[in-house]
């Protein structure tokens, strides 16, 4: 598909200096307008929240940003480059990592293998001739990355266990670790605390902050647990029925009557 010209989509880019910019993203499934002109920007090193009731369109927006769904309208720019025509794996290689609301792990692989695969795939490495010449063994920098991430997500105890034998909470952490092993510039986490207990959720929030502080990774976070969102995010936008209904700090948007109505069904 040819690249989309910068002026093909009406409207302005929200922030010329941002790492990720989405402009007027729309997506329709049959008769349902899942997203309607959603615009957002995430700066480098920022933790950005994306909240809203069930069915608001948060995961659909994630899928549009990652290239797993092609939006009906709008455009996405990453690090100044329009990426609308890029397939998912090319976007991943640019530095967009993600986790999934519905777990997407590789059951036969061990936790360590998950991280190793991510560390290698990020560079687009994997030529067949290297396998045939036995040059595919882990490189020192890949081993270093894997070991570092194992400690970061506290999965060292189960590092060599096939993921099929792990609990849901562990699988969430495997997904997070896998995304981090690809050294993303932007981590998109889709309800990462789902299935975790209170302590694990707290540890997850710490990990997200560490990732941002130590590696400058921006985080786009979809989360229902507003306590966790409050702990980590700098800014949020709120979606409801595919529309962006508020934006700002978490306190500001939660005080907004429109948001309270969307969440609670009443304005008070």
């Amino acid at each position: 598909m040819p690249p989309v010209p910068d002026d093909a989509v009406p409207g302005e880019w929200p922030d010329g200096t941002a790492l990720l910019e989405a402009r007027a993203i729309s997506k329709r499934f049959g008769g349902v307008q899942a997203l309607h002109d959603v615009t957002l920007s995430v700066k480098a090193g920022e933790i950005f929240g994306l909240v809203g009731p069930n069915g608001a369109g948060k995961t659909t927006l994630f899928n549009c940003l990652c290239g797993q769904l092609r939006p009906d309208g709008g455009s996405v720019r990453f690090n100044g480059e329009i990426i609308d025509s890029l397939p998912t794996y090319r976007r991943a290689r640019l530095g967009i990592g993600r986790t999934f609301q519905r777990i997407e792990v590789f059951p036969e692989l061990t936790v360590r293998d998950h991280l190793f695969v991510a560390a290698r795939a990020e560079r687009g490495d994997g030529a067949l001739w290297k396998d045939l010449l036995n040059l595919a063994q882990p490189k020192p920098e890949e081993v270093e990355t894997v070991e570092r991430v194992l400690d970061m997500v506290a999965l060292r105890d189960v590092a060599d266990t096939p993921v099929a034998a792990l609990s849901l909470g562990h699988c969430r952490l495997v997904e997070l670790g896998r995304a981090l092993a690809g050294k993303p510039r932007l981590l998109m986490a889709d309800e990462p605390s789902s299935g975790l207990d209170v302590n694990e959720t707290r540890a997850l929030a710490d990990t997200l902050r560490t990732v941002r502080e130590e590696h400058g990774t921006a985080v786009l976070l979809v989360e229902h647990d507003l306590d966790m969102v409050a702990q980590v995010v700098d800014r949020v936008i709120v979606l409801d029925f595919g529309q962006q209904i508020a934006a700002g700090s978490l306190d500001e948007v939660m005080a907004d009557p429109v948001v309270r109505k969307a969440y609670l069904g009443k304005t008070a």
Partner: protein
Amino acid sequence: MSNFLSYAIPGIPQGCEYALIAVGLVLTFRATGVFNLAFGAQAFVGAFAYDLLNQYQNWPQWAAFIVAVLIISPALGLALDRFLFRHIPTASTTAKLVSTVGLLIAIPLTIPILFGSETRYKIAFLWLNPGIVYGHLYQTPLNGTVIATTVITLAVVAGLVAVFRWSSIGLQMRAVVESRRLAQLEGVNSAGVAAAAWALSSALAGLAGVLMLPQSQSLDPTSTLTFTTLLVAGLTAAALASFRSLPLALLWSIVLGIVQNLLVWKLPSGSVLQQNVAPALPFAVLVGVLLFNPRLRNLEQNTDPMASVDPPPPPPSIQIRDRRLDIPMKWGWRVLLAGFVVSSLTWIPDNWVYPLALGLVFSIIFLSVTLMTGMAGQLSLCQATFAGVGGFTAGQMAAHFGLPILIGALLGGVVAAAVGIVVALPALRLSGLPLTLVTLAFAIFADTVLFQYSWSGAGDTGITFARPGTYFAIGSPGDSHFLILVLVILAVVMLIVHLVQRGTTGRYLAAIRGSQTGAASLGISLTRAKMTVFALSAGIAGLGGALYGSLQTVAGADDFGYGISLIWVVAVITTGAMTIEGAIQAGMGFALFQQVLNLYVPSRFNGVEAILFAVGTLTYARHPEGIVEFQKTRWMNRIARLFQRYDERHGRATPLPVGTAPGTPATPLAAPGAPGA
């Protein structure tokens, strides 16, 4: 206009024949969640029983119909449900498909063993006599078969639509297909409903078989795939109906029949186009539909919400092997290999050297299945076609340009790899079941059209192959030389597969097998991985195909037919598609077992080896690692426990299993299939 109608109208009964298959596939899929490739085999059973009772036992039509279609056929369906599909409710569509491929092979092969292999020339019919013309419609004679097939097909589809749309059993069937266990929680007798669905679809298969009987001049119990020749047309119509709508399946079947007839009318008479375009139409339409009908992409998904309660798969046996077995196993294999080579060159009788060489050639071809199915998780039903492409390339190059067979074999491998890439092009959009169907369509197309030309396989006559020259000066010439040569080539291919398996490609393929979405999100190019595996797998099959032709000295379309593809793939899946040993065991087992049967068992039992491998496939959904691998895992667990007990008695620490990295806790030993194993 009347000319148009005189060509179009015969397409209607022809379309009704396709419809019987199409409706059967849609019904089974909707009512049981199984994509039943064995439908043709079930139809064969019904037809055979009806013919036997009506023509050879002189039963009246109604009595033969009741027993064959209303008793034997449903009983077969009930047996399939009771002993097979009931136990694999949450298996993927592909896993269930593998079981139906096994049935497709095993069921018709059992008939000659039970009833003898004589061809039957007295063919029964149902309701109206095919020899009588009851009237004409636009110059088209309406004989008994045309009227009976059309009327009964229309009535059956109307009845089935009514059952699905308005009866509670229809609603329950749809619920049970979504999730047997969830439906059970809602108070539905899932087992009973599924059994009823199998009985119904099997009775329909029996009826289809009986209606199609008069189309054949004879009924050959050894021609195992007689009733699957209409499969592609039926599949195409079912795919056009998205495997959901029975009336649409009927409608598209009739359209397909009419279009095929019109093509015969419009294309120049006797031309190559007329001979090939009409038969090839269903293949082209099927591939197009699979590619562009988005509703078919979800066929593979296992939507059972209770699938997560299933235990995780067991680790491969090598991962739980006690490290103290390393040295005995390593040296054991070396001694065995040396013994094999020395024996083949010295004392083994000539009539055993040939099957041993054949086993090695099969092993090479079967390693292509290891790559495709074991590593990439993609069931391909055209591996024999790839082998044929390689084989015929080598044979034709030797015949026309005097190219040495070994160089021809390498060239054949390259050509097969190129064909593999072409077949993989749909893989850019497809995976799982739809892609499997593309490979099946390609295999049938090659078998019935491509390999029939003199420039390729020359049909059943076949082409002549040369044997490689003598490259070393030991042993007796002939098969022994060939055996050693093939052994060397096999070692190289094993090394290639081993390196790919433990390299980056192998890990990427394991990731893709687990979750395509997850793999793409990491930066893995699914397209590149699929192309690589298709090309490599087809290349290896092509190389093996050339060696197969060379060993046999004459090989034709029959040797690389789609039925052969099915048998080969079930052989590897039975022993274990995920390991290199699995391919070797399947190759050697298949060839040697064939020889044992040839030498020591009456000829009526020919084909028992295929039945045994096919029956083995039935366990695939429960043990995707293969029966042999499953048994190995059990034995490794037992041995590990013995070692553990010995260590405890002597106060020693048990070393970590082979698959565990140093510095990490050992995976607790458990029975295969148990959580945590």
